[in-house]
C-alpha cells in the first residue's frame, strides 16, 4: 500500500483500523488471516499495533474512572438553558403548537454524585429527551428529573412530576427510576411514572416493571407490574392496584388528558401545569365534582369553554386568575 503521510503516522492509522475492525461483533477467521498478513509485513506494524493495543487496554482498565472524570468536566458547560433543544409538540385536535419555543432549563446537579444530568420543565412545557442508551423520556409540565448512567447501571430520579419512559433493552445495565420512597426497576419496557403531591403512580404499557421501597427497612411491599396495570401509592402509603388502559395515561404526551370520575380539583391541578394562566376552584364541594371525558389541550379558553359544557360551571376572571363557579 502506498502512503503519502509520514510512515509512522500511516502505520498507526493502519494499526487503528485493524484494532477497530477486530472489534466487529462477527469477527471471523478471514479477518484473523488478513490481520496476520498485515502484521507480518513489517516489524513497524507489530510495534504500532502493540502501542494501539496498550492504549486500548489502558482505557479498558480505567473506563469507569474516565467516565466519572468526563462527567465532572462536562458539568459547568451544561449549566446553561438551551432553547435550541426545546421541542414543539402539536396537540391532538386543533393542531395548535402549545409549547412552541420552550426552553428547558438544564440545571447543574446539586448532588456530588458522579455523572448527573438534570432536566426541568415549567408550566405548559413538554420535553422529549433521548438518553445515551437510546431510551426516550417524555417529560410532562412541571417535572424535575435527573439521569445518571454508568457502565453497570442506568439511574433516573424523578424528583417531581410525570414522565413516560420508553426504555431501550440492556439486560446488563438495569434501568431504575427512583421516585418518592420507591424504586421502579425495568429491563426494557414502556411505562409512566407520576410523582406529584398526591402520591406516586406507575402505569405500564409494555413489559414488566418492579416497584419496591427504596430502603429495605422502609414500609411498603414490592410489586411486579405487567402491561395494563397501574399501581398508586398515596402519601400515607396506601397502595391500590388497578387494571387500566395505558394509552389513557399516556395521552398527555399527545396533548390530551383522559379522566374517569376524577374530582374537578385534580383536573384543574393538571390544567394549571399545562397553562401559564391559573384556574381556581374556591368552592370545595365543586372541587369534588367528578369529571369524565377527554380534554384536548389546545388553549385555555377553549378548554374552559368545553369544561363548562360538561359540568354545571361558569368562569369569571379574577385578578390574574380564572375563577370557576357553580352555574
Amino acid at each position, binding site marked *: 500500500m502506498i502512503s503519502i503521510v509520514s510512515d509512522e503516522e500511516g502505520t498507526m492509522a493502519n494499526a487503528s483500523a485493524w484494532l477497530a475492525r477486530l472489534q466487529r461483533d462477527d469477527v471471523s477467521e478471514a479477518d*484473523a488471516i488478513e490481520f496476520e498478513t498485515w502484521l507480518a509485513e513489517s516489524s513497524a506494524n507489530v510495534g504500532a499495533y502493540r502501542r494501539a493495543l496498550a492504549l486500548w487496554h489502558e482505557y479498558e482498565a480505567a473506563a469507569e474512572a474516565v467516565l466519572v472524570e468526563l462527567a465532572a468536566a462536562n458539568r459547568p458547560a451544561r449549566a446553561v438553558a438551551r432553547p435550541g433543544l426545546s421541542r414543539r409538540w402539536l396537540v391532538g385536535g386543533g393542531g395548535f403548537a402549545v409549547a412552541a419555543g420552550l426552553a428547558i432549563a438544564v440545571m447543574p446537579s446539586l448532588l456530588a454524585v458522579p455523572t448527573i444530568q438534570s432536566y426541568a420543565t415549567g408550566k405548559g412545557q413538554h420535553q422529549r429527551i433521548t438518553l445515551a442508551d437510546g431510551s426516550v423520556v417524555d417529560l410532562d409540565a412541571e417535572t424535575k428529573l435527573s439521569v445518571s448512567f454508568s457502565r453497570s447501571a442506568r439511574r433516573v430520579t424523578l424528583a417531581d412530576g410525570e414522565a413516560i419512559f420508553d426504555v431501550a433493552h440492556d439486560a446488563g445495565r438495569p434501568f431504575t427510576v427512583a421516585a418518592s420512597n420507591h424504586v421502579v426497576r425495568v429491563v426494557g419496557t414502556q411505562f409512566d411514572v407520576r410523582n406529584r403531591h398526591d402520591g406516586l403512580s406507575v402505569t405500564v404499557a409494555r413489559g414488566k416493571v418492579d416497584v419496591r421501597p427504596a*430502603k429495605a427497612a422502609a414500609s411498603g411491599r414490592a410489586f411486579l407490574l405487567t402491561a395494563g396495570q397501574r399501581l398508586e401509592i398515596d402519601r400515607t402509603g396506601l397502595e391500590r392496584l388497578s387494571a387500566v388502559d395505558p394509552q389513557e395515561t399516556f395521552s398527555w404526551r399527545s396533548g390530551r388528558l383522559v379522566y374517569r370520575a376524577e374530582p374537578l380539583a385534580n383536573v384543574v391541578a393538571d390544567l394549571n401545569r399545562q397553562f401559564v394562566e391559573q384556574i381556581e376552584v374556591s368552592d370545595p364541594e365543586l372541587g369534588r365534582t367528578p369529571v369524565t371525558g377527554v380534554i384536548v389541550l389546545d388553549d385555555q379558553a377553549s378548554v374552559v369553554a368545553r369544561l363548562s359544557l360538561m359540568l354545571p360551571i361558569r368562569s369569571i376572571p379574577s385578578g390574574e386568575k380564572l375563577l370557576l363557579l357553580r352555574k
Partner: protein
Amino acid sequence: MAPAGSTEQAGEHGPLLDALIEKRESLLLFLASRTRCMATAEDLIQDLYIKVAAVDAGADVRAPVAMLYRMAANLMVDHVRSTQRASRRNGQWRMDTHATVGGEDVAGEPAADEVLVAKERVHLLAEAVAALPPKMGQAFRLHKLEGQSQADTARAMGVSVKMVEKHIQAAIANLAQRLRT
C-alpha cells in the same frame, strides 16, 4: 511451558503446533484485541496449545495456518460471549439481590483482574477523549468506555455499524497521537 525450546524434532510436533510456535506473537496480538489485558490473551494462547495438542498429530492438515486462525477466531468469539454472559449474569444478580439505598445500587466489587490506573493518568486519558470531535468521542465513549457492542453503539447514535467502526478507528489514531509519550 512453551514447547518452543523442546529438543524434539520439529517434524514430530505436527504442522499445527509448528504453525502455532511460528505465529505465536501475531496470534497473541489477535486475541488481545478482544481481551481486557495481555495476561488474559496469554491464557487464551495456553488454551490454544491444549486444543492443538488434542488434534491428532497424524491428521492431514493441509493449511495449518488457516486452521490455526480458525481455532483462534472461535476461541476469541467464545471468550467474548462468555464475558458478555458473565456481565449479564452479574446484572441479573444485581437485580435480584442488590439492596438499593436511596435509589442507588450498592456498587459492586471491582473485578479481580481490574488494573488500577493512576489518577493523573486517568485525567490525561479523559482529557484526550474530551478533545475528540463530538461524534468520534460519542462512539468511543459508548463502545469502549460503556462497553456496548458496535451494533448497539450504532443504534444509540443512529448511524451505520460501518460508521461506528470508522469513528473508533479515528479515535484510536487520534488518542494514540495525543497521548504519545
